[in-house]
């Protein structure tokens, strides 16, 4: 347990410095999910942006928990962060897909009217 907390803290220290070669999996998963959500434009979708903000806040919270040695709680908070980031990602993708479907159906209707 002590070893895990120490590893996590070291990993966080490395992440903060940008020099970690092997960050803790939970941190990496949460950060990766946040990065992926941001990359698809989650910040431009109000509902997705809200989940993205919660995910980022939770990572900060986990950072504090790790700093406080609350490793188990930090793991749960990182899982929450990852879940929120994944929700932000899928909400963004679904909104884009729905818009594309609407446009495609309109295109089909327009094409049908051209004959």
């Amino acid at each position, binding site marked *: 347990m002590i070893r895990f907390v120490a590893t996590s803290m070291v990993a966080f220290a490395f992440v903060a410095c940008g020099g970690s070669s092997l960050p803790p999996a939970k941190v990496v998963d949460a950060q990766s999910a946040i990065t992926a959500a941001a990359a698809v434009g989650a910040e431009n979708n109000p509902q997705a942006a809200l*989940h993205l903000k919660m995910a980022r806040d939770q990572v900060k*919270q986990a950072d*504090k*928990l790790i700093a*406080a040695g*609350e490793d*188990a*709680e930090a793991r*749960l*908070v990182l*899982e*929450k962060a990852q*879940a*929120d980031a*994944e*929700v932000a990602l*899928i*909400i963004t*993708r*679904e909104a884009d*897909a*729905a818009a*594309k*479907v609407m446009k*495609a*159906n309109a*295109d*089909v209707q327009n*094409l*049908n009217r*051209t*004959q």
Partner: protein
Amino acid sequence: MKLSYLLCPFALSLAWGCASSGPTPALLDARRAYAEASQSEAATYAPDKLLTAKQALDRAEGASMDNPGSFEEASLAYIAQRKALYAKVYGAYEKDQRAMISADGAYKAKQDTLRRSAERDASSSKAALVATWDNLNQANREIADKKGELAAEKAAREQAEKKAAAALESLSRIAQVKEEQRGVVITLDGSVLFVTNKAELLPIAKDKLNEVAKALKEMDDDKLASIEGFTDSRGSDDKNMKLSQDRANAVKDYLISQGVSAEKLRAVGRGEANPVASNDTAEGRANNRRVEIIIQSSAQAAASMKR
């Protein structure tokens, strides 16, 4: 501040655990979210995500059983709620993806149909255009041919008219030629054509009639020649009529022998009718004894037949 922030969830969990034996609001939210997801498109399009959500909910339920009101239970319930939401939205996303594929397929199929239709239209339009173009070319060729024919006809007619005019000109040197309403009238003196009181042509007459034959052969095909014989008033009418007819016939026969088409010739005896001079004098009677060859158009010939 930091300590209270960290301890707050634990305190709340502890308070909830002491105050109630039922599920936490977070777990209720998670259950509700999973129920919604199970009724959504996720059941059809994202069963694996739904399974993940169910496992997350089971984990939360387990925590609720083991550590009711704990931070772990609240966190796992939160995560289960998010996993259920994720499954629900993922189902909608998958449905969108398939709808997109379907719409793309419909669009492409419609495009193909329209393209084939346009190709057919273009093909038939091209064929129609080619046919029209061919017809136009054919019409142009026919017009050019017709123009050529008309020009040739005009040239031939002008040439024929020139020849006819030249023939009449040469004829005017041996006979009287006049343009009258009934046609071009060539008057030949009877005394130089025939033996007295006979219908026998004199040798000199043949020279003159050769010129006449030449002129008649130059005539247009639609022209006719009416050969009319006239006498003076001496002798009986019957005899004069017969003599004038015989003389007209003699002239006609000779002209036919010189190559003039018989169909273009008509011989008529007029007897002593239509004198051109007085029969009281020898000179007048000589003028009345004559043969007139009238070159006529068909209409002029039909009018003179009535006379």
